């Protein structure tokens, strides 16, 4: 018997069956081409020489013995730093279907070791909550059967745009029209906005592919899609181009990229679609943005005005300000003024039980162009695991409460609410978005869905991949390493963006037509939605159906 001391066992020693993802390798199919080990972003597999016993039978002498042969095979690493993330790139490049990761069915013991060096686990991605979301379960049930003919999604004209920007009350609008007063700027946009993902969090190819797709949607398809930069600025040439009008520039507590933006203002050919001031994020409420050093490349450092290769954590709060009221008041006014009061400026907050109070502040602020609320199912490029998994508030009830609060005072047309966080997380993007719109949102932001649909992001709710923070994105979506992001063809991303929005537009019409709506987006049409869940129906003030 081998003595225990001669085997290397540490407290964190694990076997493959303890892991979240287990590599299944078929030696009989493997040609030892090495593609899988070369592409694995984590180095989770390696070619290894192994020894195998072969029975040696001496039939004539009636003796049994052993022979040994050595062979080269695939071995999975069990070191916590090199754990398989289930991305499946090995299977994607294998010419022979010899290898694939499968989810471990044993308890996931790696969880207990994700705090090496005293550092809790950080990752990118999502909350990892599987199953249908509340939005997935909402159905559109007020079918207009009383009046014939119903609308035809294919033939009739539909208005599928929404308004971004502060809208005056009709009385105020007429009064200011007569007196020549300031009428706040607004934009008619497609209600599905590409959510804030920064140039930095995303690779240059991904970011530019998205923008190229957005421009195509606007200029060729006639769909006024806009995208938000996230905190990290915008390449200088874009700031001075006509494409800026498709972009919502985000400012957050790190003010990254704003040197470039402010410098570019006098040279701008057009104004941006809007300015988003980020106070909070759904995936990691109470936490600032985080771009880990792996991703701070020369280009990113130049855009953000920082040294290369350092962590870029934004503070949780805007340091120069004391409270949200002050922030909202000062920053909205300042930014509105910076763009000559011609650009809508709105805050983004994380969904919270206190969202209504922020909203009440905004209603009284004439410069507030809307409110963007990001729910717990939102994604992020990097955050602490515990923030992502356990902190936050779901989006549906938060937006519904805010909408009903506005409706109580007849202000629901004046301050548009945008919702984000889990829209389309199971693929039902148009259905989820329209459910939010009927709950009271003027539009939705989609981030993860766009990464998955437009660029083939491999992340899922079972913690697959989710290494956006490390800059090793195997698809090149969230990496700043040219070797990785060259895998992603921006033209192909743009093509997918156009396909996605064309399809969303058709599905939106397919949802609106049976409800008898075509002239305006059915914002707050809560009589049209139902859910087979009494508690949720009561909470959201919609119909329980069964």
């Amino acid at each position, binding site marked *: 018997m081998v003595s225990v001391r001669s085997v290397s066992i540490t407290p964190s020693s694990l076997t493959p069956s303890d892991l979240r993802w287990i590599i299944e390798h078929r030696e009989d199919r493997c040609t030892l081409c090495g593609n899988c080990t070369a592409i694995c972003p984590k180095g989770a597999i390696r070619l290894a020489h192994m020894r195998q016993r072969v029975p040696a039978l001496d039939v004539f002498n009636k003796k049994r013995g052993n022979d040994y042969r050595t062979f080269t095979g695939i071995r999975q690493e069990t070191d916590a730093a090199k754990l398989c993330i289930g991305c499946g790139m090995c299977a994607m490049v294998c010419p022979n279907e010899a290898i694939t990761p499968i989810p471990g069915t044993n308890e996931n013991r790696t969880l207990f070791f994700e705090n090496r060096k005293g550092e809790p686990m950080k990752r990118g991605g999502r909350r990892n909550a599987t199953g249908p979301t509340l939005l997935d379960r909402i159905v559109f049930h007020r079918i207009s059967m*009383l009046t014939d003919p119903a609308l035809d999604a294919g033939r009739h*004209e539909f208005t599928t745009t929404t308004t971004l920007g502060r809208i005056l009350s009709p009385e105020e609008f007429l009064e200011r029209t007569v007196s020549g007063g300031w009428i706040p700027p607004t934009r008619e946009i497609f209600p599905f906005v590409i959510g804030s993902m920064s140039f930095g969090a995303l690779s240059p190819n991904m970011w530019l592919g998205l923008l190229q797709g957005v421009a195509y949607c606007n200029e060729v398809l006639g769909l006024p899609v806009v995208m938000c930069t996230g905190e990290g600025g915008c390449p200088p040439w874009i700031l001075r181009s006509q494409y800026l009008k498709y972009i919502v520039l985000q400012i957050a507590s790190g003010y990254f990229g704003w040197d470039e933006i402010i410098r570019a203002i006098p040279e701008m050919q057009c104004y941006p679609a809007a300015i988003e001031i980020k106070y909070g994020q759904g995936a990691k409420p109470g936490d600032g943005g985080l771009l880990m050093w792996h991703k701070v490349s020369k280009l990113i450092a130049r855009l953000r005005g920082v040294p290369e290769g350092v962590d870029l954590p934004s503070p949780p709060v805007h340091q120069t300000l004391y409270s949200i009221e002050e922030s909202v008041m000062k920053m909205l006014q300042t930014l509105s003024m910076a763009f000559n009061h011609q650009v809508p400026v709105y805050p983004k907050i994380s969904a919270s039980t206190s969202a209504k109070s922020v909203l009440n502040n905004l209603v009284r602020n004439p410069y507030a162009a809307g409110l963007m609320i990001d729910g717990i199912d939102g994604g992020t490029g990097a955050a602490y695991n515990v923030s992502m998994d356990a902190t936050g508030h779901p989006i549906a009830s938060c937006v519904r409460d805010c909408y009903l609060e506005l409706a109580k005072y007849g202000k629901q047309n004046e301050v548009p609410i945008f919702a984000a966080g889990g829209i389309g997380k199971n693929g039902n993007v148009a259905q989820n978005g329209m459910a939010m719109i009927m709950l009271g949102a003027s539009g939705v932001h989609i981030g993860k869905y766009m990464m998955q649909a437009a660029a083939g992001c491999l992340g899922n709710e079972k913690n697959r991949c989710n290494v956006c923070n490390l800059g090793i994105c195997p698809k090149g979506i969230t990496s700043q390493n040219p070797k990785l992001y060259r895998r992603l063809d921006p033209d192909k991303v743009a093509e997918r963006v156009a396909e996605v929005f064309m399809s969303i537009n058709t599905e939106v019409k397919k949802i609106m037509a049976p409800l008898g709506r075509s002239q305006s987006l059915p914002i707050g049409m809560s009589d049209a939605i139902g859910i087979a869940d009494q508690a949720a129906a009561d909470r959201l003030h919609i119909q329980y159906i069964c």
Partner: protein
Amino acid sequence: MCRLALKTAREPFSPYEVLTAMEAMKEGYDGSGLGLLLRGMEFEDFKYNPRFPILSGIAHTEKAWHRMTDYMEEMEYELKYDHRFAMRPELIEAQDRFRYFMRAYRMPVEFRDESDDLREAELLRARLALRKLSTEEDPLTIFSFYPDVAMIKEVGWPMQIGDALCLHDGQLKSRVCMAQGRQNTNYGINLYACHPFFIQGISTMTNGENTAFVPIRDWLLGKKFAGYTGYQSDSEVFTHILHYALKQLKLPLQAYKHIITPLSNKELANHPQGDFLTGLRQVCKRLIIDGPNAVIGTLPDETSLLVMDQKKLRPAMVGGRDGVWGIASEMCGIQAMIPDRDASLDFQPMREHTVIIPPHRKELEIWSQYDRFPLPLAA
């Protein structure tokens, strides 16, 4: 689907004439009820002063009747005339109809020299207060309380109801009559859900369904204007939107069409007042209707109007001659009301039109949304 008929003439006529139009169109609706609005009143047995507000409604029990009369006395409304219908109650389907009333009052002393706005506000207040006097045991239904306007609503075939109230006897005439032939069957039967709807002299009736009802209703409720209440029918908001546009925003009648069915971006880009109308569309976005609807309305000055939904998904037409005009869902309806007209001049409005029959009733005004908007401030 509802059938609608409106007749407007310089000389007062019997509402029964409009019921014949409803009868002509009877294949198109289920005849489940009648809603009637009369404007420009003439009573056979009373010389009516058009400044006196007329209270119309139904007292379903004697108790409810007394409650109503007591309240009016208490508020110091002086009864000037109490119209008595020559009734044939056996023709009425409903059982609990103690009395249909049309009573002309002189307003309390303190309001007699007040501005029209204040007088109207008081009439609205009184009408809503009277509605609240209704109880489950002793229901009281109040249709309108306004000078020179009377209303009747009842369940049953329009012609049969006309016979039951002996509307053919010439006791009651008006210069404008709106009729609609269906109880609201979208939701439960409720007299308040029957078109036409009325608020401060403005009235509309509609065929079709208002799919955008809930967001519009929620927005109007948020305005906290006392009269924006009820909403037993999805079509009541059409009346309130017209009221909001004319009385609250003080916009010209043409704005109504721009509010409920605004032009598209492309169309507004080529409109002489595109900027203003784009702004108007935005601020009144929650009042956009989807249809399918044809909306027929009348105003206190006896103007009549007809507008279609944005896709013209419902039929309606207008025809007539100098002095007499009719609007109906079908051509046979107009034929029944005004046979001696040149039918080749009948007009079916398209999606961009607002048909206006002005009080002089000489000729129609057909106004298009593409035309210049008649508002000096938008110029």
